[in-house]
């Protein structure tokens, strides 16, 4: 780089540029916060959904599955599983684990109570109704 472009100029551009783009990011975040209620399905955020989210978290479901495409890629996407499988299948499936089929991927049994299963299903229903800009491309997730 030429000598007319000095280190202190580079430093000033760094500070100025970083601050500018961070403030822009904050501005976009504020705008997003105002836009979210129309998209995030928060009107259906019932106590049961909140409990269901906790069931999801304390059993580390994200350690194998993706939820809206984020998580581990070892087991199916669950953001739309409510639509794909329906509530009864989901509950029966969770209760039937592990399958014990030799050589197949195994899901542990988490010993969930009936209430926890209902909460989890409600959480998955709420998740499936978030406006995700039409992702995933098809029902298979």
């Amino acid at each position: 780089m030429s000598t007319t472009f000095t280190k202190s100029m580079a430093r000033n551009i760094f500070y100025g540029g970083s601050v500018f783009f961070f403030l822009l990011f904050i501005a976009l975040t504020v705008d997003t916060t105002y836009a979210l209620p129309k998209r995030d399905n928060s009107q259906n955020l019932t106590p049961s959904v909140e409990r269901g989210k906790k069931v999801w978290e304390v059993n580390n479901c994200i350690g194998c599955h993706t939820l809206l495409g984020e998580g581990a890629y070892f087991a199916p996407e669950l953001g739309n599983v409510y639509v794909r499988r329906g509530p009864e299948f989901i509950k029966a499936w969770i209760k039937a684990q592990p399958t014990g089929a030799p050589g197949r991927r195994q899901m542990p049994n988490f010993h969930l109570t009936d209430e926890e299963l209902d909460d989890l299903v409600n959480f998955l229903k709420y998740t499936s109704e978030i406006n995700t800009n039409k992702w995933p491309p098809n029902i298979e997730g």
Partner: protein
Amino acid sequence: MQYKSQAVAKPYFIAAIGLFVGQILFGLIMGLQYVIGDFLFPAIPFNVARMVHTNLLIVWLLFGFMGASYFLVPEESETELYSPKLAMITFWVFLVAGALTVLGYLLVPYATLAKFTGNDLLATMGREFLEQPLITKVGIVIVALSFLFNIAMTVLKGRKTAISLVLLLGLLGLAVFFLFSFYNPANLVKDKFYWWWVVHLWVEGVWELILGAILAFVLIKVTGVDREVIEKWLYVIITMTLITGIIGTGHHYYWIGAPEYWQWWGSIFSALEPIPFFMMTVFAFNMVNRRRREHPNKVATLWALGTGVMAFLGAGLWGFLHTLAPINFYTHGTQLTAAHGHMAFYGAYVAVVLTMISYAMPILRGRAANSPKAQVVEMWAFWLMSVSMVFITLFLTGAGIVQIWLQRVSDTPMGFMAVQDQVAIFYWMREGTGVVFLIGLIVYLCSFFVKSESKVAA
């Protein structure tokens, strides 16, 4: 060693390497579970192995960053560390907390761990990479603060260089953005939105400042190029990092419920994210070509060049592959993401920590460089690990492309598990190259024990 207190870096580096070994072993377990689904089940279910794999990575990189800081800052500041004693206390606290957390993952069901570690008080667990129990998270904050205090006090009482200021800024950002890990609203969209303030703003933001500072420090040392030149490069690179990377966070906001305009912001800015990595590569090669001295530590130079190249490939190129919204619509959350993640972390962060260790460890052991024989062994380790990582990435990319085609693009999409069976061959090949990576790591460990017949004078 110019300053006595730099010696505290040594245990940090040793711990980092030890945890690195653990990370790779658990990676191999998971890789095998991809094809032999019931391997080690129910003793180590996949989710537990993954938690250990990713958390060990984060913790050992943090050990590496801390060790690098303790080595670099006294030299840059031309003064002894503010408190070597505090540095050692922090070391043991962090190591014990890390070990207990991993043992907790392995020995106790996760839900039980959550119950006994205060998750009911404040629910922060069960989110990818932020699985640590509340008490561990609080511990991380305390360790980070005491570390920051120590480094900042050292910088304040000594010479202030661009390298130490950029490093300090990166470390401060690391601590500040980690605080968002305590924010976990019931609203899933908000949860995910701010989760990225930790994850993205760490690895595609402030960590790159730390990376740049470490790389610049080692390049000054091994090339002897004028500090003014190197620090100017450093500023330009991190400028590009932050002006592309901050708004680039938007590439995670396409499909999680955030407004559609993020597809534009995210695509445009994150498409520019390869630029700082490309500049880093040009920078490293440029400085080495313009070197003013022949430093006896050849392998440290190799690692420095390797950091540039592998970071550009993994973070830059493989990131760009799937960052544009119309493409990401099909690739989001597939093995392609895994491919990118592996090479990006290796190229950017694993490589820069190993660069620093390669440069600093011989000095900490009382010599300017290791014997040529030991260096050749370490070079073998570099090539084995780097090339096998390229192949791990290529095989996961293959798996990803087939997966995307069968499950997402096809007119008759197949179910997730049926597709997994179709791509098993790629997983087998990935596991094979994973074993080569482990061999490379073993060779790396051996390089520390190669007896030198002719010591290079310190």
